[in-house]
């Protein structure tokens, strides 16, 4: 991940549908504060919504850490989703459009990756999953 200063760090536990909404609101607030354009705000909020729901549904709950980042003069929003669920066995497959191990559309993880500027997926079977994403202001 790019070296950058982080400010306004906030952590939200994810254990219910309401928490997904709270994560979305935190991200929206951070995106507005980082002066992202309306399109980029919507993109990062939607990506956060997908990843938070994955944390809840596939990771069995976890947490999201939202913070604003500054890299030189560039502002951005970083969100780190952590769960201690079963992990992802085949990352390539999980990132394929249309593949789902559940009942969704199979676009959440792969779509979220396209919606953000930086995407780091760290997972191992039985060791949980961590997804870190960054969206930079243009």
């Amino acid at each position, binding site marked *: 991940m790019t070296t950058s200063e982080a400010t306004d760090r906030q952590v939200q536990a994810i254990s219910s549908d309401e928490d997904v*909404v709270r994560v979305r609101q935190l991200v929206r607030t951070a995106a507005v504060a980082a002066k992202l354009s309306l*399109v980029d705000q919507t993109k990062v909020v*939607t990506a956060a919504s997908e990843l938070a729901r994955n944390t809840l549904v596939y990771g069995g709950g976890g947490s999201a850490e939202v913070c604003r980042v500054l890299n030189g003069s560039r502002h951005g929003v970083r969100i780190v989703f952590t769960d201690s669920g079963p992990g992802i066995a085949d990352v390539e497959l999980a990132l394929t459009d249309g593949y789902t191990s559940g009942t*969704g*559309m199979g676009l959440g993880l792969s779509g979220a990756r*396209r919606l953000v500027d930086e995407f780091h997926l760290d997972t191992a079977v039985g060791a949980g999953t961590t997804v870190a994403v960054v969206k930079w202001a243009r």
Partner: protein
Amino acid sequence: MALNAEQAERLGQLLSTHSDRISQRWSEVAAAPLKGRLTVAEAARHTGELQAQLRSALLAGATGVDSVHSAELRALLTELSRSRARMGFTASETATSVFALKTALYEAADVEKGDDAALRDYVAWSALIDELGLFTFEAYSRAREEIITAQGEQLLELSTPVVKLWEGVVAVPLVGTLDSARAQVVMERLLEALVDTGSPYAIIDITGVPAVDTQVAQHVLKTVMAARLMGAECIISGIRPQIAQTIVTLGIEFGDIVTKASLADALRHAVQRRNADQRAVKREA
């Protein structure tokens, strides 16, 4: 267990012998913090019922809130907590009505005189009253939770209206978060409205949905498919520029479903299609 059998019996007897004095003082102390929101007569009726129930429980052999003989007392306390919760009293104000008995007992039992046996009894009775108060507190919070759940359900119903926009055109304006529970309500309402009004066109307006993610899209698509099975055509409207770009990046495809930027566009489209249908019917006839 809060008391031993003798202490319970002595309390029961005290409640019988000084019945009037205790009930008057209890209702006075209980009504004071309610600041006139409950009349003295109502407060007196509540404390009177509690006193009678407590006395019969104690004389029947109850030694605590959990005793088998306290079943009716528990029911009464629960009922009291519920009605207070509905009337908007706080949990403290509700429990205070029970704790007020301590003051009344203190005076009736002449604890001031300072004999040790009376003091020991009073401490044990106090513990019983604490138990009753805590029971009230718990019943109160349960009642509040029920009220909140009921309000949530009411909100769910309120926030999903299906409106008739034109002859043969119904619309569902979606506002807020579209979770699975709401999506289910929306689908049911829309399908019912299609049958009730005999409308061949339905507009689903997502202007008020702040984030359209795959879950929202999936719910909307399922609703559209269900409406199609019933022979109705759905139009999705309220797709703002930022939502459109996000949907494309996310990779969601709406296929051959008609989508429009605004509700007005969607209505115009539906009305034109409907007029075309009617002209076609006339030509055939």
